[in-house]
């Protein structure tokens, strides 16, 4: 595990689920400030539920702390105001609203007008294609472009933590690689902490410094991205080859 001074996002003994169906059975993990951390695991392991608990979309027991502040028990809008930007599965696009409106909504909680305009330009810098589509309804964009809108919207919050749920879902491999490249660039340039849930372990480990493997609601393995990549068991289960 990392040194405790680097504990930025801390999850302790987290139990969470939907109604009577508990999905997470005591999850413990930490993410250091400025790191990209991959959450790996098979379908149904609880990866999405973990992210949803982090952003307050599902209730849970235990503890979630961001830089010392308690997140658990807060509503999603309150968690967002604390600087957690969640790009949900399905991208959360505001379909009939224009691309620009989608992006501006990301800054909804901010008051610093001038900085918001600068951040818009920064988002266009990461995603030049969006600049040509500003006045188009976001629902008319391709899946990859909508994922860019979702990432851009999350950036507009100036997040301290970026939660990405399966950014590769439904996208062509080339588009996915491009997106992960941009996520890496964002992490490096903005020093934004990123937690990324991903089926495609290769891609995720390629940009991550740390990784946690989730199985049936428990963390079964944690380590640096390199350690996880080198782990034979993980390799067999999620990477599709033997080391």
């Amino acid at each position, binding site marked *: 595990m990392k040194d405790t001074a680097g504990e930025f996002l801390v999850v302790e003994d987290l139990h969470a689920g939907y109604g009577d169906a508990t999905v997470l059975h005591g999850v413990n993990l930490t993410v250091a400030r400025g790191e990209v951390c991959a959450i790996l695991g098979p379908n149904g392991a609880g990866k999405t539920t973990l992210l949803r608990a982090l952003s307050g979309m599902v209730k849970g027991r235990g503890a979630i702390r961001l830089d010392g502040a308690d997140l658990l028990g807060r509503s999603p*809008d309150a968690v967002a105001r604390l600087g957690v930007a969640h790009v949900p599965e399905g991208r959360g696009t*505001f379909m009939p609203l224009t691309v620009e409106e989608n992006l501006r909504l990301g800054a909804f909680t901010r008051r610093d007008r001038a900085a918001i305009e600068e951040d818009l330009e920064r988002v266009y810098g990461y995603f030049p294609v969006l600049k040509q589509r500003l006045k188009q309804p976001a629902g008319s964009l391709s899946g990859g472009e909508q994922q860019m809108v979702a990432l851009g919207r999350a950036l507009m919050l100036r997040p301290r933590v970026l939660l990405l749920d399966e950014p590769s879902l439904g996208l062509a491999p080339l588009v996915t690689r491009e997106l992960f490249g941009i996520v890496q660039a964002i992490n490096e340039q903005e020093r934004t902490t990123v937690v990324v849930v991903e089926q495609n372990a290769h891609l995720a480990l390629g940009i991550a410094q740390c990784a946690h493997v989730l199985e049936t609601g428990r963390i079964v393995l944690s380590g640096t991205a390199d350690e996880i990549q080198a782990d034979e068991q993980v390799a067999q289960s999620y990477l599709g080859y033997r080391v």
Partner: protein
Amino acid sequence: MADFIQQIVVGLGSGAIYASLALALVLIYRFTGIVNFAQGELAMFSAYIAWTFLDAGVPFWIALPITLAISFVGGMLIERIVIRPVEGAPELTIVIVTVGLFIFVNAAAGWIWSFLIKDFPNPFPDGALRAGGVSVGYSTLGVLAVVGVVMGLLYLLFRHTKIGLGMRAVATNPESARLVGIRVGWVLALGWGLAATVGAVSGIMVAPLLFLEPNMMGGVLIYAFAAATLGGMDSPVGAVVGGLIVGVAETLAGAYVDVIGSDLKVGVPLAIILVVLLLRPQGLFGKAAVERA
């Protein structure tokens, strides 16, 4: 020909009234996906509040903003107290709650102000503009102008303010709106408050034309439903255009189709609702969901 144009003018006048209530219906539908059957009764209640001020000698143009403010707060409170507990319940449950609200508000108005009709002063001057054999009453012009102003204000609110953008975001994707930090519950309450305010304008315009009594808005509500269905339940522009079309259609049918006359006029909106639902369920301006996954 002059007579025909005259009928159209009359139709536009009543159409503007339907449009104002239809706007209120559409506002709530857009935010919550529910049809508020109590909208007309809330408008009636607001008209009574205005009447109470007028009766106490408060000038109309002072009573109006006070009434609108009370209606706004009242609409928000109703959302918090009555609708909030059933949020997330099946649509039918919520619709039934609004029907209950209809009955409650209607009875409350009767209890407070009695069921006897009251005279409500017309804020617009008597008389009419005359041109080429057609006369347009000042009150018709006034009602049209008011609806235009309400429409314009709503447009500015939704298109050019941050809170308006937030409201549209909630109407589109509440879950995602939460994730960008919008307090969705408050936006829903705000939607109810706005709708109640727009409805209050409608009630205050209806009251001088009919008489003020607790069942005043019953008929108007049916026309407003027809207008909203025709224009598209989720489109404010559609509500206004739909209202005007319904008003004109009703007047023309009453004047020129002998079988209909003035007795069967109320059948016109029902026929419009039926035909629209059969041919173009999303209405003239409504959006059928067309988007890429």
